[in-house]
């Protein structure tokens, strides 16, 4: 089972990344606080999910989002509640950012009736019609045509909404992604392809899997504009997201954002992470952490003091603690649930 350890090549140059609008005055202190709070909520939620997994309370596959929080929080700040969101199986952060209840998400992880799918979906398969969150998809790349179809529906209905379609660097080599990009460009569909490039598709680095490693260029054959973004900086994400949303809502068709980010944990829980060095992980954690970065800014700009930060910590600890409690005490689904939801009206 053990594979030989391979040292990843150097990180792709960040030179192509457009600089964030540092000190962007359009971001209010309240918005900054809210981004911090949501990122921290995702981080603590995921840590707790990892712990419940270790205790055997969560089964199967469980892909944690730790390290990538700025991507989804930054993007969420650029859309409204009617825009569609869809992603892969590393989806807990997207659901929390979309405003779904952490209790329902955690209870789905433990396979309980209080979960968003009544325990019938699990970590990779959760949805919320109410929040326009369309999953949670377990097949690498399959959400990309579906997200494009959500954009198609927006255009067909004649509304001004967009589809945020997230996928990873691993998906970026799937054929159906390019089939979808072609149709999106051809029909000018309001879809934003957000490639969360965390540098490894499972254990294979982008350099080892992808001929052109600048993933933001992957739409060039279809004339889709793209840009690389510092996905560890929530404000850089927000700024790029605003450009992309404006482009799509303006009837100009799809847009690609390559979010250069990093996952601290393994691909899934049983990943021994032999394909990258501890130094590499530590470097991101210690120098690039999106939450530490924003926290420093909040302190420096005197938006929050120590006591206020502690209060946010405590509030989030309680939300996550309550979610974990709920997820452990919500009953398992009734056996009658086996036969429900196979077909509508049958």
């Amino acid at each position, binding site marked *: *089972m*053990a594979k030989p350890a391979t040292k990843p090549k150097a990180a792709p140059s960040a030179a192509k990344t457009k600089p964030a609008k540092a000190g962007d005055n359009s971001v209010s202190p309240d918005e900054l606080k809210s981004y911090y709070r949501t990122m921290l909520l995702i981080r603590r939620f995921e*840590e707790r999910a990892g*712990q419940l*997994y*270790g*205790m*055997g309370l969560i*089964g199967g596959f469980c892909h944690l989002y730790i390290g990538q929080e700025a991507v989804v929080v930054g993007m969420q700040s650029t859309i409204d509640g009617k825009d*569609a969101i869809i992603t892969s199986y590393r989806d807990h952060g997207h659901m929390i950012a979309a405003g779904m209840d952490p209790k329902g998400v955690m209870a789905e992880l433990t396979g309980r009736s209080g*979960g*968003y*799918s*009544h325990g*019938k*979906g699990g970590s990779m398969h*959760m*949805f*919320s*019609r109410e929040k326009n969150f*369309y*999953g949670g998809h*377990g*097949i690498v790349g*399959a959400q*990309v*045509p*579906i*997200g*494009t*179809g959500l*954009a*198609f*529906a*927006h255009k*067909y*209905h004649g509304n001004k909404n967009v*589809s945020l379609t997230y996928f990873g660097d691993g998906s970026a080599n799937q054929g*159906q992604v390019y*089939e*979808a990009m*072609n*149709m999106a460009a*051809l029909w000018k569909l309001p879809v934003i392809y957000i490639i969360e490039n965390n540098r490894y598709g499972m254990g294979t680095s982008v350099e080892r899997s992808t001929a052109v490693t600048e993933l933001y260029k992957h739409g060039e054959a279809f004339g889709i504009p793209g840009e690389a973004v510092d996905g560890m900086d929530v404000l850089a994400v927000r700024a790029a997201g605003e450009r992309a949303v404006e482009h799509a809502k303006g009837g100009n068709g799809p847009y690609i954002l390559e979010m250069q980010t990093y996952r601290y944990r*393994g691909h899934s*829980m*049983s990943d*021994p*992470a032999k394909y990258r060095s501890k130094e590499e992980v530590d470097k991101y954690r210690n120098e690039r952490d999106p939450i530490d970065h924003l926290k420093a800014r909040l302190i420096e700009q005197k938006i929050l003091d120590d006591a206020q930060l502690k209060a946010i910590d405590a509030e989030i600890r309680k939300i996550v603690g309550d979610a974990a*409690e709920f997820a*452990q005490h919500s009953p*398992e689904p009734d*056996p*009658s649930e086996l*036969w429900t*939801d*196979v*077909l*509508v009206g*049958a």
Partner: protein
Amino acid sequence: MSTNVLMPALSPTMTEGKLAKWHVKVGDDVKSGQVICEIETDKATMEVEAVDEGKVAKILVEEGTEGVAVNTPICVLAADGESVSDAPAPQASAGPRASGSPQSEPEARGPEKHESPPPAPVVHASAREPEYSGKMVKMTVREALRDAMSEEMRKDGSVFLMGEEVAQYQGAYKVSQGLLEEFGEKRVIDTPITEHGFAGLGVGAAFGGLRPIVEFMTFNFAMQAIDQIINSAAKTLYMSGGQMGCPIVFRGPNGAASRVGAQHSQCYASWYAHVPGLRVLAPWSAADAKGLLKAAIRDPNPVIFLENEILYGQQFDVPEDPDFVLPIGKAKIERPGKDVTITAFSIMVGKALQAADELAKHGIDAEVINLRSLRPFDTETIVASVKKTNHLVSVEEGWPFAGIGSELAALMMDHAFDYLDAPVKRVAGLDIPLPYAANLEKMALPQVDNIVEAARAAVNR
């Protein structure tokens, strides 16, 4: 408040592991996310990170210890300001997580329990077939399919058609003739040749509130798209606890046409009929085509609609009433008889009827059932027929192994075993890729003679 750190599981199957190395010692401050130790199993080594913050109060399992069971407390963290000696012994308290830990709640988990599932709900056809006594018009299957689409598109603005050559070209087999002119390019959409992509796009559009009709130029090409059909369209309703309905029709010709070779000649009936979450229809006549396609478009579920290229040009009587719709899940007795039941679907219904005429010459009165719906399956009608005839012959164009006929044989074992006077006979395509040569192709596909032979063997006359 102190916290016990427990031996974690790396995977759902791990029960124990080795505590290989400690990265912290008693008295160290630990932050959440910090690596505190390494554990090993036969498969992997993994670093264990702290979830809670605190000071290491006690190390309970020394490094190098093998066979540490999952969920065994391995160290104690004391909270901020708590002195190390205040930390309770692990036996005294399992920490704050105890209330929900597996040990204290064994009844909530368990492959140990062997709870049997409740029985499957009995599926009856959603409605009886309407008695139609109004005016009939002559129409080809091709026209019936087109009329079904255009009538439903007039009724419901969320219905649209997409596929290769459906618009300007008027359909590769001219099924969508005139639709572009009537409904415009917003609702009749030519796609690039990318089945996987446009099937997925259709699924997304259905999730987004539309009712797509996705035409495959043939179902052979839908193999490119089968992941989206099964994993996305068929399963998402279930996986979402009922939130994500997918009202979509995937339609197009299925099975052999005429000498188009193995890659363009496969029958997918048993493939799709295998999958819960789909409806699978296979019309024969123009009335079937019209009534079932209208039902499929109105249905809130993903429907696989298997047409047949050779049938497109055949003419049948069709009820003129634009509200004529057939129920999904209902087979039709095309010819009543008392000696042997012959089931068939799609083009094989015509062959079965010809075989019945031939059998009549031998004094054998065959009942021919047009299955029409392969999922849900009208077991009731077939069982009732077999109770009368005591013999069953299944006819299909597809391969015999794990085919619709195999399923029928199994269903008869379950529901009509005591009524059978002879084993169920299967007439199916030969178990080979379909050959191109005219003589070989004919031999490979079921012909009227094969059906006659099988029925005579069944009744032993």
